[in-house]
């Protein structure tokens, strides 16, 4: 048996076993976290081995395939979930703790399945498996009005997007008689272009776009991130969002290899992606500028980053059908993958740091960050590094992924997107620098030192290490990621 199936089985068992802790009042505070932590660490190890030494082929019939692309996403999402579990030991107490970890485990399982899925049905099942627990998790502070509000909003819009995806799947099945992605691609490529196909594709864009936080399907994000327990927001921003991207890559980019949306040269799939990318990054950055709450600022910045990632989609779907742009296509999609990985780290650690501030100071507004460097020096430096990386300041990791993305489009019909991206990055530094200025140059209300737990410090150190490490030595990771896209290439 290969490591991926082992991981799936291990995580399923752990998700089901975790509630057992509910019956042991003495052991339900910390033990579930330890248990899940060990399970996740073991899964990370197994997936890691499987990604580096791949056992090629399909798993569970042809539902899953253990390829490098899946490995990258599984590793990223599991890594974030593990950090969330570790940090949750600080924030999560009370009788429902085992249920909390069980839900986390289910979500993680959903994300792993989604990463590897090769079939529309398993995509839907995994999508729901990933999403449903997060609706509950978002409302886990059950006495907090904001948390409830976040949960309800998130669930309503989530349900809508699930319905849209399901509808798209049903259309696709009706057209091709199969749910296997490769077979769907095969069948569609031989059919004449019909309106129904195009509708199905657009519905996939909107359904996945909801998780990817693409404007205009983004409006739930700031509210949900702000209202949910901040540690859950970390999970939403850094992990489940990535799962949205992997689904889009698996389905949409596979279809884009042969498919034109319409015969009209303006309304093509690359152009749709390009329009969405432009609107998403611009609106995200504009809105972030005026935010007074840290979580909302991070939420809008998260939206903006999704816009940059979409650039990779634009050039891939364009270049794969224009042999002159094949090199750019591979460059762009590598950049997108790199930015997805970077974003998980940068945004994850930024959320964690903001969470620590919230936990210790009980404040989430940006004023709370005044003079933070003197009260919580390690948190302040971590946030600063993460922000500079998010803004794409060299030589941090975010610079390289953006550079690859912009480089991939600067030549050809989407040059304006590269210019927009560069201008947006420049603009975004405005609000990031504003927070950094607050932390370092403004006077704190009190000079009292605030405790920064070791667990957080270790995670901060690891994340900063990755951000700077990927930035100074980007070669290894870029080569690794660029090898992930061989099996999505044209058949």
């Amino acid at each position, binding site marked *: 048996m290969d490591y991926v199936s082992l991981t799936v089985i291990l995580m399923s068992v752990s998700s089901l076993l975790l509630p057992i802790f509910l019956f042991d009042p003495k052991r339900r505070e910390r033990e579930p976290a330890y248990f899940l932590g060990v399970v996740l660490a073991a899964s990370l190890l197994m997936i890691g081995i499987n990604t580096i030494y791949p056992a090629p082929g399909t798993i569970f019939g042809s539902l899953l395939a253990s390829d490098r692309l899946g490995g990258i996403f599984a590793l990223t999402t599991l890594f974030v979930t593990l950090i969330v579990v570790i940090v949750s030991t600080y924030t999560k107490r009370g009788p429902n703790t085992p249920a909390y970890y069980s839900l986390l485990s289910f979500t993680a399982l959903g994300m792993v399945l989604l990463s590897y899925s090769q079939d529309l049905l398993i995509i839907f099942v995994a999508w729901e498996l990933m999403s449903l627990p997060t609706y509950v998790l978002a409302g886990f502070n059950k006495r907090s009005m904001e948390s409830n509000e976040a949960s309800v909003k998130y669930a309503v819009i989530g349900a809508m997007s699930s319905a849209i995806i399901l509808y798209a799947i049903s259309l696709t099945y009706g057209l091709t008689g199969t749910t296997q992605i490769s077979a769907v691609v095969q069948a569609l490529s031989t059919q004449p272009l019909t309106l129904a196909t195009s509708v199905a594709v657009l519905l996939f864009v909107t359904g996945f776009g909801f998780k990817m936080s693409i404007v205009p399907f983004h409006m739930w994000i700031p509210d949900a991130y702000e209202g949910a327990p901040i540690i859950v927001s970390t999970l939403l921003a850094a992990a489940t969002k990535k799962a949205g991207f992997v689904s889009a890559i698996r389905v949409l980019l596979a279809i884009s290899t042969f498919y034109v*949306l319409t015969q009209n040269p303006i309304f093509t799939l690359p152009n749709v992606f390009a329009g969405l990318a432009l609107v998403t990054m611009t609106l995200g950055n504009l809105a972030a500028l005026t935010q007074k709450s840290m979580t909302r600022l991070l939420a809008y910045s998260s939206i903006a980053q999704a816009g940059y990632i979409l650039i990779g989609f634009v050039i891939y779907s364009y270049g794969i059908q224009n042999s002159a742009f094949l090199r750019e296509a591979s460059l762009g999609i590598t950049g997108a993958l790199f930015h997805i990985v970077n974003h998980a780290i940068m945004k994850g650690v930024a959320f964690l740091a903001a969470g620590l501030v919230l936990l210790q100071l009980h404040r989430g507004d940006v004023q709370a960050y005044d003079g933070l460097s003197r009260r919580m020096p390690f948190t302040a430096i971590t946030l600063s590094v993460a922000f500079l990386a998010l803004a794409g300041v060299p030589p941090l990791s975010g610079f390289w992924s953006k550079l690859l993305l912009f480089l991939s489009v600067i030549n050809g019909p989407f040059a304006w997107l590269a210019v927009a991206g560069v201008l947006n990055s420049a603009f975004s530094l405005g609000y990031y620098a504003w927070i950094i200025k607050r932390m370092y140059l403004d006077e704190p209300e009190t000079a009292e030192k605030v405790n920064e737990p070791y667990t957080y410090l270790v995670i901060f150190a690891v994340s900063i290490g990755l951000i700077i490490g990927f930035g100074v030595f980007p070669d290894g990771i870029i080569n690794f990621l660029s090898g992930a896209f061989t099996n999505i290439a044209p058949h």
Partner: protein
Amino acid sequence: MTLTVAEPSIYVWLVIILPYAGALLIPLLARAGRIRDSVAVGFSLFSALFDLLLLLPVLQGQTVSLQDSVIPASVPWISALGINVGVLSDPYTLIISNVVAWVSFLIMVYSVSYMRGDGGINRYWFFMNFFIGNMQLIVLSNNLLSLFVGWEGVGLCSYALIGHYYKDETKTWVGTPGTRALGEEQAYPPSHAGMKAFVMTRIGDMAMLIGILILFIYSGTFDFKQLAQSSGWATRLSQSGLLVPVALLIFGGSIGKSAQFPLHEWLPDAMAGPAPVSALIHAATMVKAGVVLVARIGPIFYFALSANPSLIQPFFQTVAWIGAFTAILAASQALVGFELKKILAYSTVSQIGYMMMALGLAGLSTDFTMGLSAGLYHLMSHAIFKACLFMAAGALIHATESKYINEMGALRNRMKVTFAAFLIAAASLSGIPPFSGFWSKDAVLSAAWAAGQTGLFAVGAITAGLTAFYSFRMVGIVFFGGKSHRLDEVEREGHAVRESSPLMWVPYAILAGATVLIGIIALPLNLEGSLAWASNSYLVSLFPNLGSLPAYSVAAPQGFDLVSAGIAGGFVALGFAAAYVIYIGQRASPTRFVGATGLMHGLYTFLENRWYINAIYYKVFVDPAISGSNWLLAHVELGGLFRVNNAGVYLGIAFSSAGNWLDTRVVDGAANAFSTAGQSFSRSTRKIQTGVIENYILFFAVGIAVLIILLLWASGVTLL
């Protein structure tokens, strides 16, 4: 035949790495006082020593080649794109690098005393060391990408150090609070000045990044030597009409970083930082980064199209004229300033204009080397005398506790060393023989003369006259004349105005000495010829077959051109005489000359308000941005959504008429979700009942609707 000496490549890397290492040690030694200070200064010294080691062969007229040791001269960085990171070692680069290293070191020594007791000393040392590392990265990089890394790094340091006195106490402001131009406040607290510098240079950086990316797409490389040796990209760029635009985009970075018109307005306000910061970053080194960049891309663009260099002429025209215009613009503003460091800042902007002019002239004359080496000459001599002036100014401000020259006066007997150093450096700045500034400015002006660019020459010569006037106006007001009331007051309070400590004056005395020394040896040792040789070696390192390139030619050695030197000297003498009569001899009153009204007064106000460029920028760019952002907050977040909603409803109606099947599937689905959600909300809580989620769902639905309508339109389906 030039000899080549092999040196280990690790030396060059250490020049870059040691300051970074020093910076990283500072936080660890935060509490170690003296040890921390020594580490900060020591690492800049080590870096400078390695640099000197590399320069020694150059001083003997030999070139340096690098032998891979420990870290190779070129290291693979991103193999997927074939990008390497590496270092250069040609004489031109090494001379600039040494100027940076040694001026930085002296300023670090000066800082020990100047910054003693400052609360933010750890931050200060960290950023100063970090800055030196980044600056060396810019100078020594063999490719545009790692140059850009250093470029952003120095920008960050500059921002942090301008805002060093972040508490924004009024005495640390730059400008006189309350002064207004066109209704815009003309005085800024340090943190505002830092932000201003950051934003303005960032505009240039973005242009530069776009330029670099386009260049990479056409050439497939960031490496200077590879760019130089493969010329196909230039032809393709010029065929698509992008050759000059790309060069100008990259030059945009220079304009921002080197404070050239129209992005020059940040530098005068950057003087809010501590004096050594102004000396190091905003006079001697960082602002020269733009000059270095032009020196890098200039030759490449010039020789790349060697068959037809006239295509790239507009680029060099622009560089030269922006330089010349900036030179006279800033010099005219310096005429009326009263803040000591601000006058020096205007003068820096103006002098960098000369360097840009020289580099532009390189491409406009028959002999490319001439302009290139004139630029280098002026860069070198300016770094030395301007750092000296700034450090002396810091000492003056320290002693008199005022930043205004009219609150000093008659200091020549009390601060003798400072007076001597300031006088020498000011004379050098004015271009008075035999100081270094005379020779370097003459090199620039004679290059313009030789190239037949009479317009540029005239602007440069007039600017030289203005420079002499404002330099000796400063000297006159600060060191001659009577003691100011302010000084009397300070002395009554018991602070004796006296010479600064040796730790402070030794560094600037050394620089003043260097100015004299360079001035004296310039002719006997043919310094200009040596620099021309260094520039030529640099070109050869880029283009091994330089001699056979069609665009390359060597003009007959100019030597010392009496006509051009005579004309420039006339203007300098005029400026000097005027300043002498008014401020040193005190035989005429400047106030009576300007008057309270009339043309001269208008001109005075015009200059004092920086030609109103600063105020206009605030009116046009800053004010609307601030009010726009406020408007966004007030209207888009609250009011705007409802408008979007209404639009959404109309769209929804149009959409539902598109077809029945769409109608039932999507709109009804959305509408159902919408109403169920609405009901569940009103039951659960009033607080959620803000109607917001309906907006969101509607937004979502509108998003789908727009896409589908577009789809229908694009597929040729007509709506009812």
